[in-house]
């Protein structure tokens, strides 16, 4: 009984802790002069939202952000799944070297090498292009994804794959019937993390995209350099909607894939 009450309080508390800040930001975005210690803004207004939606590059930025996110998620998974499987299950020469290289982007801040990256991208004619931005976003995403997925593969182990092989499953079938359902938690976290990382890249996008590839952070981050809280709040909300949107799509895909596989 006491434990029950305790749990309920905890639940309510955690809801308040998650909903609370979002609510505050939402109110802020509609506020007109909201000064501490006032409980509520003096007036409400749509100014900030108007300013956000009047930005002529907003639609383009949204489109670009979604396109980049979708592409980066796809490429990251295409690269990371086999790489993680190999790192988890196979012994090969140079494995430690590759492991170290994969750690590097986590240890060295990418901004450290952004100039070299930019030079490279210019050389490959990828600077100031969507493709270049997508490629560069892989750098911070892939190492995380590989780490998460590798742990997933290691947790699952090889035995299920062997059982599947023995029952005649091809590489592709193994992927859909073993990897996808058994690694689903890892896949899900890898995707969510990738979405969040790529969506919030400002500096890499700015340098490699050269300001030409406008994404949400590109128009949003400069406002952090202002005192205009409602606009910042409005952008923040808009910004938060995207990962949630992606999350829904991912969840939808994951669910349908799982049910499809489970056909007897």
């Amino acid at each position: 009984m006491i434990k029950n009450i305790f749990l309920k309080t905890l639940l309510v508390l955690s809801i308040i802790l998650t909903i609370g800040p979002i609510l505050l930001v939402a109110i802020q975005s509609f506020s007109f002069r909201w000064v501490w210690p006032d409980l509520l803004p003096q007036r409400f207004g749509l100014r900030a939202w108007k300013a956000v939606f009047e930005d002529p590059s907003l639609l383009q930025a949204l489109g670009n952000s979604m396109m980049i996110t979708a592409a980066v998620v796809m490429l990251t998974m295409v690269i990371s799944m086999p790489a993680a499987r190999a790192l988890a299950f196979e012994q090969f020469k140079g494995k430690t070297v590759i492991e170290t290289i994969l750690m590097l982007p986590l240890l060295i801040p990418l901004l450290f090498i952004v100039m070299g990256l930019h030079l490279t991208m210019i050389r490959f004619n990828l600077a100031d292009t969507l493709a270049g931005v997508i490629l560069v976003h892989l750098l911070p995403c892939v190492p995380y994804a590989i780490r998460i997925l590798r742990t997933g593969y290691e947790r699952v182990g090889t035995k299920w794959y062997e059982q599947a092989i023995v029952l005649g499953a091809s590489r592709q079938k193994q992927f859909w019937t073993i990897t996808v359902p058994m690694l689903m938690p890892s896949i899900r976290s890898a995707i969510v993390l990738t979405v969040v990382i790529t969506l919030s890249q400002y500096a890499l996008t700015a340098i490699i995209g050269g300001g030409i590839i406008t994404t949400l952070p590109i128009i949003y981050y400069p406002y952090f350099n202002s005192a205009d809280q409602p606009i910042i709040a409005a952008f923040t909300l808009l910004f938060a909607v995207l990962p949630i949107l992606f999350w829904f799509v991912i969840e939808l895909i994951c669910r349908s894939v799982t049910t499809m596989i489970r056909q007897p």
Partner: protein
Amino acid sequence: MENYIELKNITKHYNDQRIILDDLSLSMKKGEILSVVGPSGCGKTTLLRCMAGLEGHEGIMRMNGTDLSGRTDSRGIVLMFQDSLLFPHMTVLENVTYGLKMKKIVKRERIQSAREMLAKVDMSDHEKKFPYELSGGQQQRVALARALVTKPDLLLLDEPFSNLDQSLRYELRQYVRDVLVEEEVTALFITHDKEEASFMGDRLAVMGKGRIQQVGHPEVLSIQPCNPFVARFFSEGLVLEEGFIPTQKLTLIPSGSPSKDIQMEGEVVNESLEYGKKIYHIRVPHLAQTITIPSSEEHNFTKGTSITLKYTENNIHYFDEVRKIKKGGDGENEIVAYS
């Protein structure tokens, strides 16, 4: 009859270069159940993994005349692991249809075959359950159904009962053997339990030191081992340097009794009961061996008594290599030495 399965000169080592399978050869007839016994770590699992295509190896593997080298997904060989390894995210029915699905059998047919097979292993009532809802024995039965439903050309079973308690094991092995016979499956059954091996197999192979030491009917193996390894591991009796005397042919007499037969000194170190009969455990210092002999009505010995084992020259089954020499060395100059 033509051999259905033919393994020739299979050699296998893992990354550490230690040889696990050493020039191993083995053949099987169609519809035959062959048991393989051998001490732990002798490479039984490795052999099955090679046959199932999970490990690379050297040497030739043929099934029904076709070469199996190269890892293919559809070699028609199904391996049942030590653990049942039912896919935890699938129901019993989904598990059983898995192999058929991989063979692209249409849904209706595969469900029907799966149900039939589930009925055979007495698991029809559980098709909607998930593996964690089943007992260990039930899981093994589902795993068997999953393996059999694909009508494999060869079924490999790797100690499928080792994780079960004895009574369940006895029950299940009867079951499995019946199903295997009924389905006319060619099966290779692995165990390290001699008794289980003779129960399950039509024939029996003793494996050791990376190769098949002897293949034959269990009875033959127990009285006519071809070498000291088989004799020590499988047969019951006294292992001499040059041959073997089965327990039945040994007579136990009190120490010092006069006899014109060959005699071997021993000591009763222990006694136990089996099927209501007293069994003597006798150490033979001369051969550094301990053997078990059932008691007879004539004598009664107590623990610690010195005794004499006697047998005649005729009782000795000579090992292959000794026999070759005895025949006049018409074998290919083989070395007469036993390790």
